[in-house]
């Protein structure tokens, strides 16, 4: 990748030789399966073809969920990656750390975060977990909903022993009793299905803006230097979103989301509980609630000392590319312009 970067400088021309896209990925039967729309973009091959026509290679960097966002932030900061589909909180951490990013395409309605308690612990709410050990991978998007949950209950992180371990190691830690509870994404449902523990709270019970969001972020420098290539990347994600939004592809999307380790019925159950239409799950629209979410994340992270500098959420959002992609692909009006997340 650094070779690609060097080549980009050597070429002297505007165009780089490689566009690098990073995404959370899972190994499945010897292949890397990319999360969400990135998986569709990679399989579709359209972006690769369009870039190839311009003599540019597409490099897709798989990032294991165990290391996740910190690795992406380090890649952005060292200019080794140009785009990444990843979470809200790590992106705010990067911007606060002085790595300019642009949110070039929102990806959907956000994901639920679950608080799971291991068997043998008699707890029905977060307050019952006082003094207990909770697994939480620091700096990941699910830290914020957890932090909000503590706030809402008048609790502090110091009321618990927070154990910083990655989500891949968490089920084993719960099963072994090394931790009493854990904050997880939908792998929390898997913990429940395996009989290791049960969910006592999720963001589905909280205001809609508590959900974590993941989006397509571009490196600030790349986006301003190469708006044409950024447009191509966003076009590819909008194509993928439109494809996934088709009812005919619903089953394939659910199969993809299982990523080879989450049982399909868990995904189906989670998706079925949504309060919005299927197509909105993939909405790339810069709705007012998306902007509000980033304002809230930035303010919250600063107020809680998780970042040391104020992040300008307005400067983070860059809606030019989605607007053009929707127009070019004749998708204007396909997704709702306002909030769709129920009555919260």
């Amino acid at each position, binding site marked *: 990748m650094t070779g690609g970067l060097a080549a980009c400088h050597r070429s002297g021309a505007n165009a780089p030789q490689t566009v690098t896209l990073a995404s959370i990925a899972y190994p499945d039967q010897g292949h890397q399966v990319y999360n969400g729309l990135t998986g569709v973009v990679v399989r579709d091959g359209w972006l690769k073809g369009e870039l190839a026509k311009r003599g540019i290679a597409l490099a897709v960097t798989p990032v294991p969920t165990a290391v996740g966002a910190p690795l992406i932030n380090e890649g952005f900061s060292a200019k080794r990656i140009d785009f990444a589909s990843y979470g809200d909180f790590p992106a705010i951490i990067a911007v606060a750390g002085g790595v300019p990013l642009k949110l070039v395409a929102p990806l959907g309605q956000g994901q639920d975060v679950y608080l799971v308690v291991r068997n043998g612990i008699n707890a029905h709410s977060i307050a019952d977990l006082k003094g207990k050990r909770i697994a939480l991978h620091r700096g990941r998007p699910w830290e914020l909903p957890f932090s909000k949950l503590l706030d809402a209950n008048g609790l502090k992180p110091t009321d618990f022993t927070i154990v910083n371990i990655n989500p891949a190691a968490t089920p084993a830690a719960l099963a072994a009793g090394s*931790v009493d509870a854990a904050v997880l994404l939908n792998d929390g449902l898997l913990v429940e299905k395996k009989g290791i523990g049960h969910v006592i709270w999720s963001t589905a019970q909280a205001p809609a803006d508590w959900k974590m969001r993941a989006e397509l972020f571009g490196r600030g420098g790349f986006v301003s230097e190469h708006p044409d290539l950024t447009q191509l990347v966003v076009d590819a994600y909008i194509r993928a979103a439109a494809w996934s939004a088709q009812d005919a592809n619903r089953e394939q999307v659910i199969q993809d989301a299982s990523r080879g380790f989450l049982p399909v019925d868990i995904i189906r159950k989670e998706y079925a509980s949504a309060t919005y239409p299927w197509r909105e799950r993939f909405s790339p629209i810069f709705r007012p609630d998306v902007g509000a979410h980033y304002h809230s994340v930035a303010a919250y992270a600063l107020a809680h000392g998780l970042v040391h500098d104020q992040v300008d959420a307005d400067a983070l959002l860059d809606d030019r590319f989605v607007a053009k992609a929707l127009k070019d692909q004749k998708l204007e009006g396909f997704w709702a312009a306002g909030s769709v997340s129920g009555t919260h």
Partner: protein
Amino acid sequence: MATAPASFLPSGSRRPGFKLGPLPQALVPPLALFAVWQLACLTGLFPEQVLVPPSTVARTLARLAASGELERDVGVSLRRLLVGFGAGALTGLAFGAATALSRWTEAALWPLFLLLWQVPVIAFLPVLVLFFGIDETFKITIVALATFFPVALATFDGIKSVPRAWFEVAQVYRTRLPDLLWRILVPATVPAILTGLRVAITRAWVVLVAGELLAADSGIGQLMETGRQLFQIDVVLAGVITSGVIGFLLDRCARALEARATRWKDA
């Protein structure tokens, strides 16, 4: 040792390099490194988030020290080191002595010991997590393991290197076992064992920090890991410097003890 010949030198013939004591001399390379580091930051060739200037790291260190965070994490790590090192050193001494003094235990246990000794302690981490979870037991166990091997090996070698003739002479003089141990075996093996303990303590420190990076709720390794996750490279580097300085001081103290305890050899 080195001071005696110096006094025979005529005054004025002392080489200028000796004006600085050994400590200031040792400070030159790190200071030069800090200066180059700061200069590299000032050139702006590297993004500030990647190459944090040492001045920022120093401020972060001061902030962590003032808030008590550094003291807490260093304290937790040192406590783990102390307990783990104590357990590892005692078992290492016992195992090394037992295998060196008995042909049967040597034949039975030594090959397995040598085999396990070849495996880096870090490679045991996942298995240890399964057995001991991620609690204190886990961290103390990795420190104990990292200590056990060098100490056992040094004890074994120390005892084996005592000339057979000494035992034979002791037998001729009908030396009692406590005297054999205290007057012959201990003085003969102490230098080797102390070297083993010194190697062990620095090794144990490195392994502990690595273990804390992997799974912990506190400690200097965890301070660094959380810093990385929250993209606070200054905190990561503050941790690197702190753990480096602690490792250095541990080695220095161990060397000083070793020199003190083996002074009789030079006499």
